[in-house]
């Protein structure tokens, strides 16, 4: 099923490499020369590549037009090349290791600092000799110069010495500065496009990177905040697509937050977040193409003086409804073009008519149900009290429509252990009433009236309840819990109330009580790296899948807050969350004293989150291609309708496209994503996002407009989906082989001829190898016994619904030096590459990946910084227990806190701050995030992986 994607057909795997690599034991007799970053193109390219930060040019953006393709040009001076020197080999990896291509006989390559290309006469053709020696030796020697022997590549990370090696003296390796730097790419894009206005007026233009802040103006195509594509120019034929093997996909985040003052070209400037324009055609409802049912959008071509229009998607000619008629101007555009969002904007909303509602009835406003596990542990840890106290203030912040004064969202409360307790909090009651449902085998809702209430009206009863809940169960000794019946109960409650809604479940243990969905501890490390490993990611019992189906059918979104002390089987309990567009939060070994800020911020944010309920998404495309596969926190009953019980601003759906036919270069590839949903006030709406892509018969055009961040998002999601059905090893191999294929295809078809030993990377994919390596190293794809299964399942689930910005940060964390800050400037310091080399004893760094945040302190961190941050005199006095920096008024503290705030800003998960001192035990954890280095779990270093990919490419080219 999911194997049908471009990525995964096993037949496409390349059998030869492993054979070659495997047994021969023979080193590559060639010199490896790595060259990246080529460019096609135009004179200005040189300037772009001049690497001078000031040279801000965005001209290469326009190079997407086929006509402008001029073929590869000699690289400018700044291009980097690397020689992989010969060197002794590291010993064979541990025999139990079964990485992607880690045959034990595989010789490894010595690392060596690469050579900056600047000194070389012809950088992109520079060849360096490489040589291998027999296995068993550590790299001992570094040779500089053009003639260097390169040892054979060992991928991934077959490091011999274990963790100790990491803290030892750094190994000699290729100069990391000489290989493509994600930081460089990010900074370059920031420099060239940051802070500017990006107008979406051109089809197929490549937007700035997700890491670049700029102002986006909707001029007919959806903002990249809503849709990002893996490539902005589709190959015109499926043969071409097969050849390139570049996934054609769009990452759609339909409810992405659009910052204030970023609005379309027309009319309104809102002070805060910018809502989309809402089109209301009254009872007629949205105007749609008769044949393909696409919604009126800028891609519709008005003809015959405006009486008809041709659908851009299916080319059907439709009558313009009389009320919608308007004359055309001299260029054939409707006179009211700029007055109608649906004619001039990429994104807008329609008010839906009753035809779009369940049972043709207007929907009720959604409801939030809070379901608290009151078993012994949660009571004992104080969690229940914490939640109850917080809810008292939080309930005032329920989401509401901008123009409304109070929230229409109703709330309900359930507590549970082995049985369920519902609460009647009707406003006219003096005391809340508790109703126990102990028939957990067949859960039902014991009350209708009084369960879901308006908080404003029932405030005193609700507060009374929240005060009493912790006391009520204070002397409980019930330690068993149920889980599936809890979701069932919430779902039934929403069903009975005929509304959509979210469940907020606060759960802490493996549900072992006798009830549907009962789970046992099945975490079995023996399964790792076997064909059965996939079962660990699958739900243990079928209950959860059918429950998920019911939840989606009843528009019940499940948000799960987990507080596990041990295995809770995230793969099972998180399944419903995953399918219903909910969010999973996990707080291991939750301690209220240190972890409550993180949890409470998450909770607060989740409750306030902008959400669409009871959503169905449909992606329509112009003729010649269609959406074939969907990845995300979604549920699909058929092949086209993406169902989401709820979709919030952080959820992204990655859609893969396939060719049906040849694409027309003139008409391009058009995509319309329509999301039918119920707003927070209970209004049924349609949110439309349109985007147009180019098509080309030239592969180079395709490569030129690729977006690596989106690619990685796609690869991550498709790989994480694939592990449910394929062995990890196969998945990893496919990832590597596809990377190699894409690059090899480029090499073959787009690059100017060069020696086979050269590694040539398209400019837009410069950082694909490093990101791909990060993906391969992610704990989900690494079966190591020391990584808890729950953690892997958790990460897998999170990534499945992430948008491009989130995956970018997640796979390549941000590492910010904070020891040499300019305290006067507001700017966030430039990030450095995630490698140990970038750390220094005298420095302090913040590392963040969207889930965790570390403050790493070198042993010789300046005392004034320590004083400023911690208010303690010296390094030794710093306590690593704290999860927050103390509130101090000095400039250091303020600045660093503001940086942290900036990092945290708009991220879906609150990052818990961990303070890590150099050379102390917790540093191990921190080091896992230095993704360019070898990981302690066996992931390859960036350099090693690059070599591996290069070798694969070479084999493909041969």
């Amino acid at each position, binding site marked *: 099923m999911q194997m049908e994607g471009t990525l995964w057909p096993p037949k496409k795997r390349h059998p030869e490499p492993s054979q070659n690599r495997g047994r021969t034991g023979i080193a590559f007799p060639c010199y490896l020369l790595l060259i990246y970053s080529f460019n096609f193109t135009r004179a200005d390219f040189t300037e772009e590549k001049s690497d001078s930060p000031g040279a801000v040019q965005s001209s290469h953006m326009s190079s997407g037009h086929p006509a402008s393709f001029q073929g590869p040009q000699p690289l400018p001076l700044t291009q980097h090349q690397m020689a992989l020197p010969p060197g002794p080999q590291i010993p064979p990896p541990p025999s139990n290791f079964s990485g992607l291509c880690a045959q034990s006989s595989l010789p490894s390559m010595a690392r060596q600092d690469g050579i900056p290309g600047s000194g070389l006469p012809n950088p992109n053709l520079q060849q360096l000799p490489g040589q291998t020696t027999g296995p068993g030796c550590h790299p001992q020697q570094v040779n500089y110069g053009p003639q260097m022997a390169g040892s054979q590549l060992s991928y991934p990370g077959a490091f011999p010495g274990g963790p100790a090696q990491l803290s030892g003296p750094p190994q000699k390796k290729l100069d990391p500065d000489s290989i493509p730097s994600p930081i460089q790419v990010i900074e370059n894009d920031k420099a060239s496009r940051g802070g500017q206005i990006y107008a979406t007026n051109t089809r197929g233009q490549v937007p700035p990177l997700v890491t670049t802040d700029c102002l986006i103006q909707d001029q007919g195509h959806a903002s990249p905040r809503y849709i990002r594509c893996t490539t902005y120019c589709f190959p015109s034929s499926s043969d071409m697509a097969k050849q390139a093997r570049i996934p054609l996909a769009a990452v759609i985040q339909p409810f992405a937050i659009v910052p204030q003052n970023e609005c379309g070209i027309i009319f309104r400037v809102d002070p805060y977040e910018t809502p989309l324009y809402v089109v209301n055609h009254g009872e007629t409802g949205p105007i749609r193409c008769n044949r393909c049912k696409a919604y009126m959008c800028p891609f519709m071509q008005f003809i015959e003086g405006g009486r008809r229009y041709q659908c851009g998607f299916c080319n059907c000619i439709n009558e313009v409804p009389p009320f919608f008629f308007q004359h055309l101007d001299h260029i054939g555009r409707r006179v009211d073009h700029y007055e109608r969002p649906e004619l001039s904007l990429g994104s807008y909303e329609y008010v839906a008519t009753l035809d779009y509602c369940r049972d043709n009835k207007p929907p009720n406003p959604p409801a939030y149900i809070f379901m608290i596990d009151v078993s012994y542990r949660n009571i004992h840890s104080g969690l229940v009290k914490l939640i109850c106290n917080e809810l008292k203030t939080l309930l005032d912040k329920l989401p509401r429509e901008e123009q409304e004064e109070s929230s229409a969202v109703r709330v309900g409360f359930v507590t549970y252990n082995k049985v369920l307790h519902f609460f009647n909090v009707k406003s006219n009651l003096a005391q809340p009433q508790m109703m*126990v449902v102990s*028939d957990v085998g067949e859960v039902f809702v014991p009350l209708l009236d009084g369960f879901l209430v308006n908080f404003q009206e029932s405030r005193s009863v609700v507060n009374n309840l929240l005060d009493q809940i912790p006391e009520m169960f204070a002397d409980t000794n019930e330690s068993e819990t149920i889980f599936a019946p809890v979701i069932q109960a919430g779902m039934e409650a929403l069903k009975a109330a005929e509304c959509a809604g979210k469940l907020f479940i606060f759960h802490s243990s493996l549900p072992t009580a006798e009830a549907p969905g009962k789970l046992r501890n099945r975490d079995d490390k023996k399964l790792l790296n076997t064909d059965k490993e996939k079962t660990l990611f699958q739900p243990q019992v079928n209950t959860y899948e059918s429950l998920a189906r019911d939840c989606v059918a009843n528009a019940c979104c499940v948000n799960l807050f987990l507080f596990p002390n041990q295995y809770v089987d995230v793969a099972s309990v998180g399944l419903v969350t995953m399918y219903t567009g909910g969010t999973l939060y996990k707080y291991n070994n939750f301690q209220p004293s240190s972890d409550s800020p993180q949890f409470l911020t998450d909770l607060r944010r989740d409750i306030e989150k902008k959400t669409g309920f009871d959503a169905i998404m449909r992606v329509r495309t112009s003729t010649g291609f269609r959406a074939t596969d969907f990845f995300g926190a979604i549920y699909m009953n058929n092949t086209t309708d993406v169902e989401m019980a709820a979709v919030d601003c952080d959820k992204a759906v990655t859609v893969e496209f396939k060719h049906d036919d040849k694409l027309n270069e003139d008409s391009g590839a058009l995509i319309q994503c329509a999301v039918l949903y119920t707003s927070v006030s209970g209004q049924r709406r349609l949110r439309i996002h349109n985007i147009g892509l180019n098509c080309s018969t030239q592969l180079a055009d395709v490569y030129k407009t690729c977006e690596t961040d989106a690619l990685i998002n796609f690869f991550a999601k498709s790989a994480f989906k694939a592990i449910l059905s394929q062995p990890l090893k196969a998945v990893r191999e496919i990832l590597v082989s596809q990377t190699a294929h894409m690059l090899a295809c480029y090499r073959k078809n787009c690059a100017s001829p060069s020696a086979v030993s050269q590694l040539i990377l398209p400019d837009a994919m410069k950082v694909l190898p490093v990101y791909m390596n990060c993906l391969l190293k992610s704990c989900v794809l690494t079966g190591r016994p020391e990584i808890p299964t729950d953690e892997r399942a958790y990460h897998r689930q999170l990534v499945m619904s992430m948008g491009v910005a989130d995956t970018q940060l997640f796979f390549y964390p941000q590492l910010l030096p904070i020891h040499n800050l300019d305290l006067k400037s507001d700017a966030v310091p430039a990030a450095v590459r995630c490698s140990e080399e970038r750390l220094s004893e005298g420095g302090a760094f913040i590392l963040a990946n969207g889930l965790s945040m570390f403050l790493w302190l070198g042993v010789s961190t300046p005392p004034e910084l320590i004083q400023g941050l911690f208010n303690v005199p010296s390094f030794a006095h710093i306590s690593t227990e704290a999860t927050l920096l103390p509130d101090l008024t000095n400039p250091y503290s303020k600045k660093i806190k503001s940086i942290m705030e900036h990092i945290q800003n708009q991220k879906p998960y609150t990052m818990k701050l961990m303070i890590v001192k150099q050379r102390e035990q917790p540093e191990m954890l921190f080091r896992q995030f230095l993704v360019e280095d070898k990981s302690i779990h066996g992931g390859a270093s960036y350099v090693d992986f690059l070599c591996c990919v290069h070798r694969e490419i070479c084999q493909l080219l041969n």
Partner: protein
Amino acid sequence: MATYLEFIQQNEERDGVRFSWNVWPCSRLEAARMVVPLGCLLTPLRERPDLPPAHQVDYRAKLWACNFCFQRNQFPPAYAGISEVNQPAELMPQFSTIEYIVQRGPQTPLIFLYVVDTCLDEEDLQALKESLQMSLSLLPVDALVGLITFGRMVQVHELSCEGISKSYVFRGTKDLTAKQIQDMLGLSRPAVPIQQGRPLQAPEQPVISSRFLQPVHKIDMNLTDLLGELQRDPWPVTQGKRPLRSTGVALSIAVGLLEGTFPNTGARIMLFTGGPPTQGPGMVVGDELKTPIRSWHDIEKDNARFMKKATKHYETLANRTAANGHCIDIYACALDQTGLLEMKCCANLTGGQMVMGDSFNTSLFKQTFQRVFNKGLSGEFRMAFGANLEVKTSRELKIAGAIGPCVSLNVKGPCVSENELGIGGTSQWKICGLDPSTTLAIYFEVVNQHNAPIPQGGRGAAQFVTQYQHSSTQKRIRVTTIARNWADAQSQLQHIEAAFDQEAAAVLMARLGVFRAESEEGPDVLRWLDRQLIRLCQKFGQYNKDDPNSFRLSESFSLYPQFMFHLRRSPFLQVFNNSPDESSYYRHHFVRQDLTQSLIMIQPILYAYSFHGPPEPVLLDSSSILPDRILLMDTFFQIVIYLGETIAQWQKAGYQDMPEYENFKHLLQAPLDDAQEILQTRFPMPRYVHTEHGGSQARFLLSKVNPSQTHNNLYAWGQESGAPILTDDVSLQVFMDHLKKLAVSSAA
């Protein structure tokens, strides 16, 4: 000794026993020829501390021989000092009934579990809530009380918690086993491994159950508030639908709750329902209003979809309840039927009450319910629990069965007959709930063979041993022993005849008829009754063959045919014009009331008030309906005051308000006072009907009186008196004529 009548009366007062025959035919064959079976109506809990006289005592040996098995027994040590002059009460002949108080076993307080329907309209619910709140003050202070409410769901309210009120909720559509219910209510304790040498104790049992059953004095405030806050079932009921009412599950949970917590202690489950069960096990009718609830017509046509299943559900529950020694009361107040037909066994098998009314907001319900908690003369509640009635007979007699609010305990023995009459095959029955008027019909069989007659002067004896839990929670044993003379039916038929108790016989036969009517077709039962009557008349009538006019019955049989006539017309055997629920209700009361009440039910009493003389009982006949009379009819279920035509006109003219017609005012008042007296004492409180000539409610009277004048024979009887009844029913006269004809017929 004076007349048999006095003897009978004396016996009844002393022992609560009335036999159909007070001199017993001495052989099986003769007994069979008597037509009316040898049987008695036993009211076990008549209040008199007497003792049995039937033991032969050897004072010297300090031994006594049992009259039933001839075993010689030692007196217990407490009786060591007895002699001929110092007899214990048991041995005095006038103490044929005696009550022992047993001081053993833990005394558990009485339990009252209210099971309350919330699918009522606001007014009804309010009234019911008030009645329930009021009842808290009437309960014994240490009684345990519990509350279950139901509608679409069933809620078991926890009464012990402070602060938030807490209830356990059950789906109304799912039948649960007792074990499941107890698990879900958290009543089942984890299995404790049985430790050797240590007796199993269950000290915490009351603690656990006390979550749902609490002493009244502890939680009456709480419960009053809880009842006060009780809301109507909140689930919306759409147009054209009945509310979803989970009576079946509610009862099941109530039964399961008590079963798990207080088996074999006195407990009442009091069900208050305002409509038929519409979902789940025990549903009687669907929730579509367009399909009406089953009628007799549907039942005859086998069109009552849910009846069998529902009946089975309630029967299972009733049997379980009975096994636990608890009883179920049903208070059904609704204008339409509420499913009493299906639920009747709950009350019938457990000795519970059944009350049917139009609304909870009527004095009928309110006062009836209040009367449940009335105290007797001795200041004790007039209710007893968990009774075990054992009947012992002397050798010539066997027990054929019993009819009443009881279940068989299936105790076989030598004194148990093979032929069953009523609930037979046992010598012991369980009566889970009883009050001083609860009366069982017990049928015997004479087993003595014709050729082995009983010696002259020998007596047959029967002993009734009723062990029960008194309302004071004491265990008590009441023993009634009776003995009657044997007589040879051939030589001493006149003795037997004279000792015939026709009232008791009518009721005993009627109970048999009603018992049959539960399982047989109505006409079959009537035919059976008729045949019995004809045979009795043939046996005891004096007549010349084939000469109806010569037919005479002796005084002791004279009223019997008339009772049968009215019985045939009674709602106990006739279902015409009654709903199945009403029939069930009437029959329920008929098989548990004492003789006097039963006779009223068979043949209502009619009093006449007029200026012609003091109030007098008059014939239950249409000829008694005269214009210048006020009639007061008591049918047990109804009290009807009927103003004759002239009286009604006088009243309209307002004569009663004129000082000079004060006597008229008194005349109007007299039946009211008498009615009030009946209303005050009767349980359940009768429907009170005040009507007049031509009033629509006059039908209550007109349907009961013997239609001696109908539109068919009106002119033949002359104009001057009575009121014609528009009916095709035969009158008593016609009935008697036929009876005579058949009795004297040589063909029969």
